[in-house]
């Protein structure tokens, strides 16, 4: 049955100011599955997610979207002080939801006690949980989570990934997850795509983790030292993101 597919990218690319941010990416997200994009800073993870969301007009390749019910947690979101927002106002940002639906989503992510607090007064971890609650509140078919654990400590990260796994099972939605650390997402993901301007490698988390380059990249000390990112492929990446053949 092909109709489990929620979004399918076929050889997509996007360039800005004559520079390719990402190129030649193919992937698909299915119902109930979690696809994780990993890669160093500037490797095009967020760009790929935005292509999947349909945020760019002039892209190369094809994007097929089979749902319009999408929840999105962007990488950066800053609430200006001049705009007073409580958590409950934030939950209603893109959709009209009933109190029950709001409560359910906030309970699921464990932040129901913050409902009447101002967004500006939340801690990093609380804010990420509120972002997640907002994204899942309308029971989306597709969730796109761009670094949903940023600003959260290590134990908090693991708890959040477990929560994301739980959400995907409960809502039976497809999730496109962006992370810079495969180890903490390992148990939660079905398919990993490793990006560096293009797809460097992909497969199940085990396959990717077995990859010897991958070990060099994301090994024991990997969490801290992502800057030494190298691949054993037929090319190297120059500092400005260009690709040089060996």
């Amino acid at each position, binding site marked *: 049955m092909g109709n489990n597919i929620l979004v399918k990218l076929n050889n997509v690319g996007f360039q800005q100011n004559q520079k390719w941010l990402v190129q030649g990416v193919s992937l698909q997200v299915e119902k109930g599955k979690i696809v994780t994009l990993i890669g160093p800073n500037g490797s095009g993870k967020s760009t790929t997610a935005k292509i999947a969301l*349909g945020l760019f007009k002039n892209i190369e390749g094809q994007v097929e979207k089979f749902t319009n019910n999408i929840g999105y947690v962007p990488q950066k979101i800053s609430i200006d002080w001049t705009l007073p927002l409580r958590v409950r106002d934030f939950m209603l940002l893109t959709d009209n939801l009933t109190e029950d639906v709001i409560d359910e989503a906030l309970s699921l992510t464990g932040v129901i006690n913050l409902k009447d607090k101002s967004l500006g007064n939340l801690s990093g971890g609380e804010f990420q949980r509120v972002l997640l609650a907002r994204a899942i509140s309308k029971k989306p078919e597709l969730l796109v989570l761009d670094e949903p654990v940023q600003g959260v400590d290590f134990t908090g990260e693991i708890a959040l990934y477990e929560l994301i796994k739980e959400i995907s099972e409960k809502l039976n939605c497809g999730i496109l997850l962006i992370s810079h650390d495969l180890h903490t997402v390992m148990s939660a993901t079905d398919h990993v795509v490793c990006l560096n301007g293009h797809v460097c490698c992909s497969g199940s988390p085990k396959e990717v983790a077995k990859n010897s380059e991958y070990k060099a990249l994301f090994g024991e000390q990997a969490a801290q030292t992502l800057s030494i990112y190298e691949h054993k492929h037929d090319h190297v990446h120059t500092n400005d993101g260009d690709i040089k053949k060996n």
Partner: protein
Amino acid sequence: MFDDFFIRALVAGIGIAFVTGPLGCFVVWRRLSYFGDTLAHSALLGVTIAYSLEFNIAVSIFLISSAIALILIQLQKKTNLPSDALLGLLAHSSLAVGLVVIGFLTFIRFDIMGLLFGDILAVNKKDLLTIWVGGALILLVLRLIWKPLLASTVNYELAQAEGLNPDRAKAVFTVLLAAIIAISIKLVGVLLITGMLIIPTAMARNLSDNPQKMVIFAIIGGLLSVFIGLFSSLEFNTPSGPSIIAAALVLFIFSLLKVKQTIQLKN
């Protein structure tokens, strides 16, 4: 009852305050205060064109302000000048061109002070109709684009990803801004209409914890400013615009006391 000029000014001011409150909130949230200023400055050009072509003033201002907004968008795409420089360029050149054109129209007697700072005597019955009908339309349209506009103010891409249309909301909002400037220029004046949008809103921020509350406080602040400002304008024979804005400033200063209290409570 509308035969008394003061009643007319008051009714006009009340109508304007109901619209500048909510629009002003978005101007502050979206950091558009300088943009509002630019549209208002270009309104003077609109007035002169209306006079020279014997055209409806409000419609003329509205068209010129919208045109300036379009020109700004084009310039942003085609030059590398930062937005604030472009806004300054448009604001001052349209103000200057407006004043130069006035210089040429020697056959018409212009009350320049009235145009720049508002004139309590200038509001006629037709203006009241324009303000109240136009104001009601502006509020209705703002209600319709409230959700996409607020969502894209928080995060543009999030709004777009979840199926809203932030670009359309932004374009419509720009038109609404041009419209409120067009209908309120007579009372408040070209140079001070942005103050009417921003100062009651700034006061409201100090008293609110959510967007709806802030809109309501901004309206209340605007209404109080209009009442206090117009009564003192009558009493002291000062121009209406500056009197209203000065009243708004006093209210803002009072609202700071409330902020100070909450900060002390937190400590």
